[in-house]
């Protein structure tokens, strides 16, 4: 019986069936649920959240060299972090099958950029598979493992948001159980790319690519669907699904094992079709290659390369190609209020942003829930670049001589990911910035994964809790202080003092994410209408539980979890705990 599975569940299922015994990763939307699902099989698969993608990649790479099948999971930007091991593992090759599962985010639903992981396949000279639904996600994982072992190469399995987070029906199979000899072969010329051996490996990479071209040409993951010969469309990944609805009569070259390019198949297809159109999401990689083969085709002229594709966008492409004016289905316009994502009611980060709002400082931010602190009315984050940059960019603003005091903000998981090296730099190179670690004891934005600070592993075992304070001191930071962000007075006092310290300081704002704890912070609050002066200062906290609009703000009893920040900022004393005062 077929099962309804998300792409990520299906990737995990494929890895399980393929006999994977080591799986690592770092959480990142839209990739996170791969490892979360695979870890349900923890009696047969060792799974871990590593501190970052580079570490995760190296752990799984070593597992492969030791002979087991392994995977590593991450989002597209995570592969930038893991690019270093990827580029050279391509030289070393693998022993047990090794698949890097990378999920792209066209349209930037939950990411800071839009990048096309297919570029990495070509860059690192490794094969890539691109499923277009959950069934293929499961099937291609099994194929990718076979290819990886047969050709001793790391393989990339590239998903996208719409593949990872769409559900469709999947026929599953049994787990392959093969007896493997585990243990690293003693063979430095194979595994040590010092120049003399590395140059040999370099040539092997090119030889392997030629063999892999033959493999992609013969792969059942690549197929020609002949229908009308007047238009032939080359496509891959989720774009295939849209193509089938927008051009149901057209012939299609559907690529699933898309690099190395299956040139013979592309030529055969181009010969059989009168016109060739390439429909690919993000970069025009296939189009450029097909043109380089001397085949005339169109793509970017009609198909947008920015943002994700959709049936509606491709209907417009089709209209343009057919010389018609695109029939734009303009939805009726309503003057609707925007509803951007916001920090949850009772979020401890709110206290820090509220306190920082009193200072004219530069705030270098980072990736996590707290990125939402950039929105008005909190409006207290000036930059975001990448994981860990909240710390190192603070140091850069400081060294540039920015006249304002400099604050860097980073979350706990992000600090472990790549904030520590930045802090080391600040201490070593005598910076003066104030670094605040928003330690909510979890990796919140991606759905509450454990990390080195939570005391629990993905396998569900208790483990030592790392001390951020001790790391700070070990890096050479002399001023280290831990605060409770729900106590605004303490928070403001410590921030004000540390900004004037004249040397670097580390503030750890510690309070667990209430969404994870599923518990109240304190008593529910209410507004006493007769005392309220309608100054609206409480609304500057941007708490979803506080409804403005009317003269007297209202606190939603469904949303308020009693963090009490509104009570602390109210100058009129009109907000009180519901249980204590009045008739509430």
């Amino acid at each position, binding site marked *: 019986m077929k099962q*309804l599975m998300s792409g990520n569940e299906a990737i995990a299922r494929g890895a399980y069936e393929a006999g994977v015994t080591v799986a690592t990763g770092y959480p990142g*939307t*839209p990739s*996170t*649920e791969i490892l979360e699902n695979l870890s349900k099989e923890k009696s047969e698969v060792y799974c871990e959240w590593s501190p970052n993608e580079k570490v995760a990649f190296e752990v799984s790479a070593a597992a492969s060299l030791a002979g087991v099948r392994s995977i590593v999971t991450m989002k597209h930007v995570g592969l930038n972090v893991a690019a270093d091991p990827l580029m050279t593992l391509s030289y070393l090759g693998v022993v047990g099958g090794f698949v890097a599962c990378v999920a792209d985010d066209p349209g930037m*639903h*939950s990411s800071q950029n839009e990048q096309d992981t297919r570029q990495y396949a070509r860059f690192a000279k490794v094969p890539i598979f691109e499923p277009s*639904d959950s069934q293929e996600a499961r099937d291609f994982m099994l194929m990718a493992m076979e290819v990886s072992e047969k050709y001793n190469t790391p393989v990339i399995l590239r998903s996208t948001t*719409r593949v990872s*987070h*769409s*559900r*469709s*029906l999947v026929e599953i199979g049994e787990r392959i159980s093969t007896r493997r000899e585990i243990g690293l072969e003693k063979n430095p010329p194979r595994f040590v790319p010092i120049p003399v051996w590395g140059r040999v490996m370099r040539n092997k990479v090119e030889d392997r690519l030629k063999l892999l071209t033959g493999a992609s040409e013969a792969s059942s993951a690549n197929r020609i669907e002949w229908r009308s010969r007047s238009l032939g469309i080359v496509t891959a990944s*989720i774009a*295939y*699904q*849209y193509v*089938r*609805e*927008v051009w*149901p009569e057209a012939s299609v070259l559907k690529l699933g094992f898309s690099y190395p390019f299956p040139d013979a198949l592309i030529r055969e297809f181009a010969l059989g079709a009168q016109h060739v159109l390439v429909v690919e999401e993000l970069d025009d990689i296939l189009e450029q290659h097909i043109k380089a083969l001397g085949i005339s085709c169109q793509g970017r002229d009609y198909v947008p390369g920015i943002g994700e594709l*959709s*049936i*509606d966008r491709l*209907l417009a492409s089709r209209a343009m190609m057919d010389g018609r004016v695109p029939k734009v*289905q303009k*939805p*009726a316009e*309503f*003057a*609707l*209020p*925007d*509803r*951007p*994502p*916001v*920090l*949850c009611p009772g979020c401890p980060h709110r206290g820090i942003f509220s306190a920082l709002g009193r200072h004219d400082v530069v705030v270098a931010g980072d990736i996590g*829930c707290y990125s*939402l602190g950039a929105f*008005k*009315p909190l409006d207290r984050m000036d930059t975001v670049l990448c994981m860990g940059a909240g710390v190192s960019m603070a140091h850069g603003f400081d060294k540039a001589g920015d006249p304002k005091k400099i604050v860097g903000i980073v979350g706990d998981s992000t600090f472990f990911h790549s904030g520590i090296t930045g802090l080391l730099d600040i201490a070593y190179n005598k910076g003066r910035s104030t670094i605040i670690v928003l330690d909510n004891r979890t990796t919140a*934005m*991606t*759905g509450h994964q454990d990390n080195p600070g939570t005391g629990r592993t993905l396998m569900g075992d208790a483990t030592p809790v790392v001390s951020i304070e001790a790391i700070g001191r070990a890096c050479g930071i002399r001023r280290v202080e831990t605060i409770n962000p729900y106590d605004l007075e303490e928070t403001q006092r410590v921030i004000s003092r540390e900004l004037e310290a004249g040397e670097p300081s580390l503030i750890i704002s510690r309070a667990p994410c209430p969404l994870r704890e599923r518990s109240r912070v304190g008593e529910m609050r209410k507004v006493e209408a007769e005392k309220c002066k309608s100054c*609206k200062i409480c*609304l*500057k906290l*941007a*708490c*979803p539980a*506080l*409804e*403005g*609009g009317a003269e007297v*703000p209202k606190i939603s009893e*469904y949303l308020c979890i009693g963090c009490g920040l509104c009570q602390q900022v109210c100058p009129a004393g009109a907000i009180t705990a519901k249980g204590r005062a009045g008739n509430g």
Partner: protein
Amino acid sequence: MDNEAETKSVVLAGVGGQGILLASGIVARAAMQAGYDVKTNEVHGMAQRGGSVVAQIRFGTKVYSPLVPMGTARVLGALEQTEALRYSGYLAKDGLAVVNAQTIVPVTVSMGAARYPENIEALLRNAFPRMIYLDAASKAVELGEIRTANIVLLGALSRGLDLQEAAWREAIASSVKEKFRDLNLKAFDIGRNFK
């Protein structure tokens, strides 16, 4: 487009935390029970933090895209009033809108940067010639569990789709914990029998 005639689309909209994902899973299971090919899509991550959330379900003999083309959904179910209007473009001209008469004030309104439409019911009635407008949240509170509002909505929405009631009931039973099963089935009945 042949496929277009066969594939049925459903769009569910609301605010992060209202139970859109559970509801979309139930629609998908009901369609599966009825023997259809099914695809769904939902939003995770950043978009869930109290923001506007949309889930899409498509079923038919063979479904390609998990995403619903504009103007084609048979049913649009919204757990919040402005969200119904925000995603109204998905609904086919003769499609059914099912709207929960609930207002969740966005932070943009609270801080005075935007206004919540005052004449929301009139806007909805104008936008959706076929609409079931119900206070699913109050019905759910009457049942004793505000969190079943999504299932009340689903009950009303089920009237716009040609799936057997038994398929819905099985889908609900297999999607919620056993101790909440009867409660959710009651919530479904309230929506399905809403006049």
